[in-house]
């Protein structure tokens, strides 16, 4: 009996050793990368060597993977290597964005150097959803006006710079309101902002955080499920904006979102909901060709409505009957427009170039005053060139006091 036990023990010992040796043998040979930025070796490329650089501004040789994604840099076991990743596959999720994308040299610098991306995005209406919440609470009598008091989560702005800015928002808890419509809104509608996971339906497919806009999904066919890509870009096509906008309508009676039932096959029909009015440039250009980074990502203040932060109008580019649009001459190569043009090189900017400017004094860097005095716009996502026709000197009969888009739509709306 004793000899049998000894043999069994020896067999178990040998088996254990063989298992350990086999485990070691099947481990891949690590591919070592020592990024310039961290100077710490990481083995991520052992499995992920086929991924392209996420953007020209983030080459893997300089950044590596871990500085953005986290994870166990020297682990070769998949589960262990991924166990401490920030935000799963999306380190730009707002729950972890400060650790992933922050830092004064990266995306949470000062407003003065225009590197306060994270602070602005997290206080923007795209993140707080404050406008929709305020509207619903006001509509159902739960607050006396449309000033935002709640966001999808609590947020504080220590320095309020604008007259419409709000100092802080409390977290919205729909269950604390007696009104059933508000409760229903809380259940059905509060995933409609960029720091919430979208519902698990094709029409909602997008990332959270920065990647909601800056990581376009691979499939532009809105009828199919999109796939994730390892891309960060500032050349955001309208199809990415449509991941949230133009998806359908809200039914206030049932407090639900009703996805559009049509399946548009061309740009003209994909862009807007069936009953909306729009002009040619609104379905020819991409959204970011006109709307600025401040409009999209916020100005750092908490606002009660997107109307408070949306200021580009038709006249910004086309001017009025009496005035041509505002222009400015680029004089400082350290200004943000040069950085933006470098990140998305659809135009080559030079000191002395004249471009159109917004009413807030921002350079619309993808426009140009040509030597003959005419204006041109270059599509940020397409590189396509468009002539901008001024209202002044045209046959336009607009009332100078009526500059909102609906007045332009009265004559210039496209029929479908």
């Amino acid at each position, binding site marked *: 009996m004793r*000899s*049998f036990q*000894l*043999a069994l023990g*020896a*067999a178990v*010992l*040998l088996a254990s*050793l*063989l298992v*350990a*040796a086999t485990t070691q043998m099947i481990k891949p040979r690590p591919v*070592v990368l*020592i*990024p*310039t*930025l961290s*100077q710490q*070796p990481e083995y991520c490329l052992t499995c992920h060597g086929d991924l392209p650089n996420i953007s*020209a*501004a*983030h*080459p893997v*040789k*300089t*950044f590596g993977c871990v500085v953005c994604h986290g994870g166990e840099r020297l682990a070769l076991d998949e589960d262990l290597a991924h166990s401490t990743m920030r935000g799963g596959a999306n380190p730009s999720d707002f729950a972890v964005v400060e650790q992933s994308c922050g830092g004064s*040299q*990266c995306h949470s610098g000062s407003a003065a*150097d225009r*590197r306060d991306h994270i602070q602005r995005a997290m206080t923007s209406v795209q993140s707080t959803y404050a406008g929709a919440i305020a509207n619903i609470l006001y509509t159902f009598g739960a607050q006396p006006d449309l000033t935002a008091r709640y966001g999808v989560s609590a947020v504080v702005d220590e320095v309020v710079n604008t007259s419409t800015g709000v100092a802080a928002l409390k977290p919205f808890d729909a269950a604390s309101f007696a009104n059933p419509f508000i409760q229903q809104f809380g259940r059905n509608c509060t995933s409609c902002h960029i720091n919430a996971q979208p519902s698990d339906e094709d029409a909602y497919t997008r990332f959270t955080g920065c990647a909601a806009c800056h990581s376009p999904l691979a499939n532009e066919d809105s009828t199919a499920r999109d796939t994730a890509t390892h891309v960060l870009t500032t050349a955001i096509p309208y199809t990415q904006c449509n991941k949230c906008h133009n998806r359908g309508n809200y039914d206030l009676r049932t407090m639900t979102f009703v996805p559009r039932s049509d399946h548009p096959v061309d740009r003209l029909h994909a862009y807007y909901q069936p009953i909306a009015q729009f002009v040619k440039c609104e379905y020819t250009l991409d959204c970011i060709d006109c709307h600025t980074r401040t409009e999209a990502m916020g100005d750092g203040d908490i606002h009660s409505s997107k109307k408070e932060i949306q200021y580009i109008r038709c006249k910004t580019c086309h001017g009025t009957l009496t005035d041509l649009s505002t222009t400015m001459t680029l004089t400082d*190569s*350290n200004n943000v427009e*040069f*950085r933006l043009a*470098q*990140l998305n090189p659809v135009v080559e900017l030079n000191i002395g170039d004249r471009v159109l400017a917004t009413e807030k004094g921002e350079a619309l860097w993808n426009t140009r005053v040509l030597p003959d005095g005419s204006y041109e716009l270059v599509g940020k996502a397409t590189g396509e060139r468009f002539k901008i026709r001024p209202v002044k000197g045209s046959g336009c009969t607009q009332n100078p006091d009526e500059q909102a888009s609906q007045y332009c739509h009265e004559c210039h709306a496209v029929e479908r």
Partner: protein
Amino acid sequence: MKSHSRRDFMKVVTSYLLGVTGVLGIAGVARFLAFESAPRPQTAFDLGPASDFPLNSRTRLNSIPALLIRKESGYVALSLLCTHLGCTVEDAPEGFICPCHGSRYDAQGAVQRGPAADPLRHLGVEIMADGRLTLYTA
């Protein structure tokens, strides 16, 4: 003919198993002892004979990456890592440009446009006793 008992058989099996285990164990220990950790990043680079770099030449050393400038006064080396986040700068008509975030430097490495705030780093260059150049990155 000598008969073998069951116990003898088990002894042989046990000896065999322990023998193989021992050999495998020794191999494992040998492998452990022979493990070499990844070498530290190289900080000294032999550039070859100093005479290979003619007067007023500017030689880009992409593998380091650095720029070696031979002047009347001697040898000067500039790191080609952008001082913003460490991307390798590229040659531009007026000096260097960082392809990542657009920082620009003049031909001497001084910042012309941010986001970089500091000039390109000067690296140490030494002419060795045998006439060869060594460049130090740290």
